[in-house]
């Protein structure tokens, strides 16, 4: 009986875990939908601003632009965009592994800026200085949150604290696949195929340098916002997958435990019958 009670308690506890896993999966699905909507809204701005920047850069001196000029130094500020919490499979640990490999390569003097609450200890174990942690980012980062991160990174770069800034986050490939991606942020990479050159008679008001400075700030803000939203979409997807797997595992466990419970119950019934039969024999013999 004690054994049966233990199994029943275990099943009850696993059912609770299954309920939690299912709820977390549904919450992650809802957050994913909202994040994807906001992420997709940025696509137009990204396309137009990038295209305009590339056209402008093709005909301007980018070495005069502080956010675009290349630098010789080896100091890299790596912006690690981790999740706000765990329970999302290998999402966070894959990022830390990538950062570790980059640091171990030893080609750059790396410092970190962390966006997300997860893994202070794991990140500290990387053994490089952490300049700042943005640990209050929401589940669907808005423009104001992105601007705070972008302004900080811009300040680091312009003050000469670092020679390059790169983002490291989980790129959203599909609902089934997310991959760590290093995205160079500063100096801004304006190379690429612009959709046709600017017409020669284009009027630049007041001048190309002012326009480039203004546009590069908008592109920086947009790049950070897009990366934050993409990383969040990947995090929510990873959590959905992890919770789905957890829910499936609990189903299997419950099925196994139910069989065990049936066996135990059957054994108890058999024992009771054997005891009754044995008792009746004894009574018959005494009569």
């Amino acid at each position, binding site marked *: 009986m004690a054994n049966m009670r233990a199994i029943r308690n275990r099943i009850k506890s696993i059912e609770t875990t299954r309920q939690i896993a299912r709820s977390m999966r549904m919450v992650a699905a809802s957050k994913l939908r909202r994040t994807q909507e*906001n992420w997709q809204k940025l696509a137009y701005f990204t396309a137009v601003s990038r295209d305009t920047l590339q056209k402008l850069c093709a005909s301007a001196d980018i070495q005069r632009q502080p956010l675009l000029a290349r630098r010789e130094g080896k100091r890299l500020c790596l912006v690690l965009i981790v999740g706000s919490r765990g329970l999302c499979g290998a999402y966070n640990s894959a990022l830390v592994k990538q950062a570790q490999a980059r640091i171990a390569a030893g080609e750059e003097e790396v410092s970190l800026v962390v966006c997300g609450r997860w893994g202070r200890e794991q990140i500290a174990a990387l053994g490089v200085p952490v300049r700042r942690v943005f640990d209050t980012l929401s589940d669907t980062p808005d423009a104001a949150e992105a601007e705070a991160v972008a302004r900080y990174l811009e300040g680091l770069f312009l003050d000469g604290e670092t020679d390059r800034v790169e983002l490291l986050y989980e790129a959203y490939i599909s609902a089934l696949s997310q991959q760590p991606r290093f995205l160079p942020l500063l100096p801004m990479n304006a190379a690429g195929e612009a959709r046709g050159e600017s017409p020669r008679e284009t009027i*630049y008001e007041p001048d190309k340098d002012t326009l480039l400075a*203004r546009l590069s700030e*908008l592109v920086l803000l947009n790049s950070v916002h897009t990366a934050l939203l993409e990383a969040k979409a990947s995090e929510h997807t990873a959590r959905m997958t992890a919770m789905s797997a957890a829910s499936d595992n609990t189903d299997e466990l419950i099925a196994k435990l139910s069989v065990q419970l049936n066996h135990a119950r059957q054994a108890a019934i058999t024992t009771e019958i054997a005891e009754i039969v044995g008792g009746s024999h004894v009574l018959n013999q005494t009569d």
Partner: protein
Amino acid sequence: MDSICLILACSDGERWEQTVGAVTLPGELGSLGVLKNHAPMLCALQEGTLSCRSETGESWRFRISDGIARVADNEVTVLLRHMEAIK
């Protein structure tokens, strides 16, 4: 029709699109108007009020942050950090 396509796009993803007859932009060097067949132009904008009106006389006004306006092929694309419609 003497119309141009005006698109206001913010870095937070907000977007407003309308076919209009004329646009007035708060340029860095002062207010400037754009009509159909304007020469291609890239223009830095300062914080201020953007206004436009359709050929039927309907008009719209927006309080905008600084940004950039791109004029080409009868299309005016304004890239901003944020905007707010003035009623």
